[in-house]
């Protein structure tokens, strides 16, 4: 007797047909697989096959569910006697998008911005590229023309938010702790605190990181990637996801070009190679060179988004 499912595998087993009088002897099981059927408590019928292999060998079998889905699994023959009669693996097809929840909240954020006629930009860069300096300068230069407020993302401290606050601008700090990027839910909570006015611009300064923030939609209208000339000019092809995801690239600290080895043309070529549509502004937030182009883009975007 098979302990697995109660079927017989000895030579004495036979089948008798009382109508015809035929008696058939069931041959000893010589093949290693047999099929049988279980009826589940809810009435579903599951058919599967399994082997009668010597103990200690792995046993593999297949189920066919009533809806036609087939699945197979294996387990050690030793455990079979205890659990096989009770437990089977059932395969569930999910097709679930792992970032689905984030994307749903991002879509809600996007609707929230749209309903209030707010332009939201997601500023991304590596740490130390000068995002906060560029942002404070932008706020100071444009605060007469544009209503700006900021969601500041960092792993720790409120240092950057303090700098933004000094400009007189509304700012909310989101600390991500061990997280390396802002996600849509953090921005949603930040927005509740920030309560930005209608017809305004919300700058979301992401955590300094050229990798992870590229994957997380926050509900912004555009990503703005900031790259400084103190970094390598090959950053766009080293971190292509971020440069591909961004609508514009701001090349900062260009006042330092005489002192650093940085090939601007090659950097632009790399950026265009990754993202042919990307618009590039070369600026210095210290001296103010090139900021007009960025301000013009920002002002137009605030009206037309």
């Amino acid at each position, binding site marked *: 007797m098979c302990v697995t499912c109660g079927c017989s595998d000895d030579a004495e087993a036979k089948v008798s047909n009382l109508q015809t009088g035929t008696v058939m002897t069931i041959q000893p099981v010589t093949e290693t697989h047999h099929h049988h059927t279980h009826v589940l408590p809810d009435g579903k019928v599951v058919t599967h096959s399994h082997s009668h292999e010597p103990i200690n060998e792995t046993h593999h079998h297949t189920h066919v569910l009533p809806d036609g889905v087939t699945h197979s699994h294996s387990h050690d023959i030793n455990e079979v006697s205890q659990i096989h009669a009770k437990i089977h*693996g059932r*395969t*569930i*097809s*999910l*097709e679930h998008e*792992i970032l689905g929840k984030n994307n749903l909240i991002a879509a809600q954020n996007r609707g929230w911005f749209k309903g209030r006629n707010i332009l939201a930009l997601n500023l991304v860069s590596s740490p130390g590229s000068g995002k906060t300096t560029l942002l404070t300068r932008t706020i100071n230069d444009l605060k007469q023309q544009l209503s700006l407020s900021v969601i500041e993302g960092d792993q720790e401290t409120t240092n950057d938010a303090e700098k933004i606050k000094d400009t007189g601008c509304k700012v909310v700090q989101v600390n991500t702790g061990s997280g390396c*990027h802002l996600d849509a839910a953090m921005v949603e909570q930040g927005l509740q605190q920030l309560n930005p006015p209608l017809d305004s611009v919300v700058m979301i300064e992401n955590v300094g990181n050229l990798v992870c923030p590229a994957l997380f939609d926050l509900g912004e209208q555009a990503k703005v990637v900031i790259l400084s000339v103190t970094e390598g000019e090959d950053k766009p092809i080293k971190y292509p*996801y971020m440069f*591909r995801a961004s609508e514009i690239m701001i090349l900062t600290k260009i006042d330092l070009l005489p002192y650093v080895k940085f090939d601007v043309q090659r950097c632009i070529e790399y950026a265009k190679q990754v993202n042919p549509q990307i618009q590039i502004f070369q600026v210095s937030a210290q001296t103010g060179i090139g900021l007009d182009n960025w301000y013009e883009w920002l002002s137009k975007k605030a009206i037309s988004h």
Partner: protein
Amino acid sequence: MHEIGITQNVVAIVAEYANGAKVRRVLLEIGKLSAIMPDAVSFCFDVCSQNTVLEGAILEILQIPGLARCRQCGAEIPLEKPFGVCNCGSKQLDLIAGEELKIKEIEVDEVCV
């Protein structure tokens, strides 16, 4: 290291669908252009699944190669990176495969009398 956040999402989603049943196997589909490292997800999976119904489950990852379509000539081009140049010279490529990030299927224990 966004993989840890991604893996936490995987564990949360699978646990929700398993509805209390023990999970034996999880099959993920990760595109080669998704900026997700399968090795890092596997590493995080053991940690993130501890003390959940996923503890001890086998993680299988199916990697989908990158593929783009040229906007200029319509050719399909295999890609190793999320950018490239078509034979026609165009860099205007639309990614059509390789950015997947999905839980394809899970296998859970089920009582079978």
